[in-house]
């Protein structure tokens, strides 16, 4: 059968964010896949060099709308390490609490997206309704649903009262019951099993070889979790399990995330029950002494790593952000090969991709020196020419 290459994205109804996969098809089966990224690159690393450390906090929060807390925590851990700041225990506990609430909201969001991609839209409706509970918790504690802005250099911006504590516990209790139902669904519902088992396989060796992280790696039996391996915040004082699974497929990724929800609830209760007394922030000087620091953080999607170099001023010399999706995308090409075209959206969704995290550089053409507005005809022409250069002719359509 002759091979045909089709572009999947950057704009495609089955993708939530811009990314492009060039799929080589033999009939309905995929024999090769290459990934093209960069459509969301916003130049954040360059922009960070022109901003002070506190301004960067707000920039870095906007790396991603889902793991905003992961990125800022990773960033300020570096800042505080270089400033040699002693952050109060209560602040660290509150940061950990937000980290886990964020994981719950992200995993529930993913469960919904996975349900949607496998054609099980009821699951999508259920989990997104329940996700409101945790978003309400975040709003209650921070005032915001998405960019919580709880972190500040040297601590956190808001304290937690006894009433808030009780309200969060109440909502988490409700979610615990619901999650038991999701676990039953994920492991027993025939629709789910038929759509996820043996789909998008990623064996252990390949996961290691391609640098997969987070639930994607853990579903291939890689028992790695930064919270356990290189504990930050207060994770070394908390009791939780690293969830792994050995089926290496989308089903495994589903199970890992569902069970991680349970661990997160456990963590949230432990943190709230043992919240240390004391101040929530210390003052940190605006200028950092020259030095380098690198820290990683277990974001909902996997290891997020930030590198920071300070030069003695109030602005960083270099800031590097590597979000988990970039590490996982090399594995997606492998998962797609040999699979079926109809499984593509599900396999891609199974790593829980987040493109705004992954692409971070601005694109601007200084030679043209002006803003251009394309007409529909020009836009269409541009698209046809672009794909022609890459071997696909849409001119006839």
């Amino acid at each position, binding site marked *: 059968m002759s091979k045909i290459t089709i572009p999947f994205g950057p704009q495609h109804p089955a993708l939530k964010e811009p990314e492009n996969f060039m799929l080589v098809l033999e009939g309905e089966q995929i024999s090769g896949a290459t990934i093209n990224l960069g459509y969301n690159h916003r130049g954040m690393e360059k922009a960070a060099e022109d901003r002070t450390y506190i301004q960067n906090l707000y920039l870095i929060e906007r790396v991603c709308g889902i793991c905003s807390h992961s990125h800022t925590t990773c960033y300020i851990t570096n800042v505080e390490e270089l400033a040699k700041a002693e952050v109060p225990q209560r602040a660290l506990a509150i940061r950990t609490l937000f980290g886990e609430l964020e994981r719950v909201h992200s995993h529930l969001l993913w469960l919904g997206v996975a349900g949607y991609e496998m054609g099980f839209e009821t699951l999508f409706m259920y989990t997104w309704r329940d996700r409101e509970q945790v978003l309400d918790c975040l709003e209650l504690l921070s005032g915001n649903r998405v960019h919580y802005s709880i972190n500040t250099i040297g601590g956190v911006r808001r304290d937690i009262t006894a009433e808030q504590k009780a309200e969060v516990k109440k909502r988490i209790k409700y979610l615990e019951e619901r999650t038991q139902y999701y676990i039953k669904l994920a492991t027993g519902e025939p629709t789910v099993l038929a759509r996820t088992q043996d789909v998008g396989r990623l064996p252990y060796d390949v996961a290691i070889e391609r640098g997969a992280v987070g639930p994607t790696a853990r579903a291939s039996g890689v028992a790695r979790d930064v919270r356990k391996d290189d504990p930050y915040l207060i994770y070394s004082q908390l009791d939780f399990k690293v969830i792994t699974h050995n089926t290496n497929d989308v089903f495994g990724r589903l199970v890992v995330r569902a069970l991680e929800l349970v661990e997160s609830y456990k963590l949230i209760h432990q943190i709230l029950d043992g919240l240390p007394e004391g101040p929530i922030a210390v003052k940190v000087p605006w200028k950092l002494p020259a030095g380098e620091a690198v820290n990683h953080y277990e974001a909902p999607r996997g290891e997020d790593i930030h590198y920071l170099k300070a030069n003695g001023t109030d602005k960083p010399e270099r800031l590097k952000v590597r979000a988990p999706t970039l590490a996982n995308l090399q594995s997606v090409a492998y998962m797609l090969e040999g699979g079926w075209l109809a499984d593509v959206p599900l396999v891609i969704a199974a790593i829980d991709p987040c493109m705004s995290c992954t692409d971070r550089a601005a*694109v601007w053409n200084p030679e043209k020196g002006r803003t251009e507005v394309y007409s529909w005809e020009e836009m269409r022409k541009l698209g046809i020419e672009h794909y022609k250069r890459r071997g696909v002719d849409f001119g006839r359509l």
Partner: protein
Amino acid sequence: MSDLANEEKIKADLEKEFHGAVSNAVVQRRNRVWLDAEAARLPEILAWLKARGLNHLATVTGFDEGENLGASYHITDTKILVTVKVKTPRAEPTLPSVLASFPGALSYERELEDMLGIKIAGLPAGRRYPLPDDFPTGQYPLRKDWKFVPPAGETEAK
């Protein structure tokens, strides 16, 4: 120093194994080792670390230090994080590819080529990342002398 035994051992073993090619090795704190290395021996050093169980290349940070460009390779087993720093002259910046031991490094190496203009010897042909296809050649946004100039006549959205 007993609580830093693992870190000290990696540092000592690296210095012994790659005598002369590794310098300024320090154990910064628990789980963090930093070192400078000779660019030519980078693939060897990374392969050696991988064989030691540090088989996850977390990311690569490219940098511009004026006379030199370079990159820091952050390698880890999620416990110990070793940062290997290599430099290359600005006049002709070239670094060897590490894809032989870390195939997952493809996008990190493309990023070094795109954002800093460091030529990666041994990198297979492919589409650029992360800049768009029509980005002007010879412009490397992460170099310190590259400045963002807003397009003439454009006003900030309020």
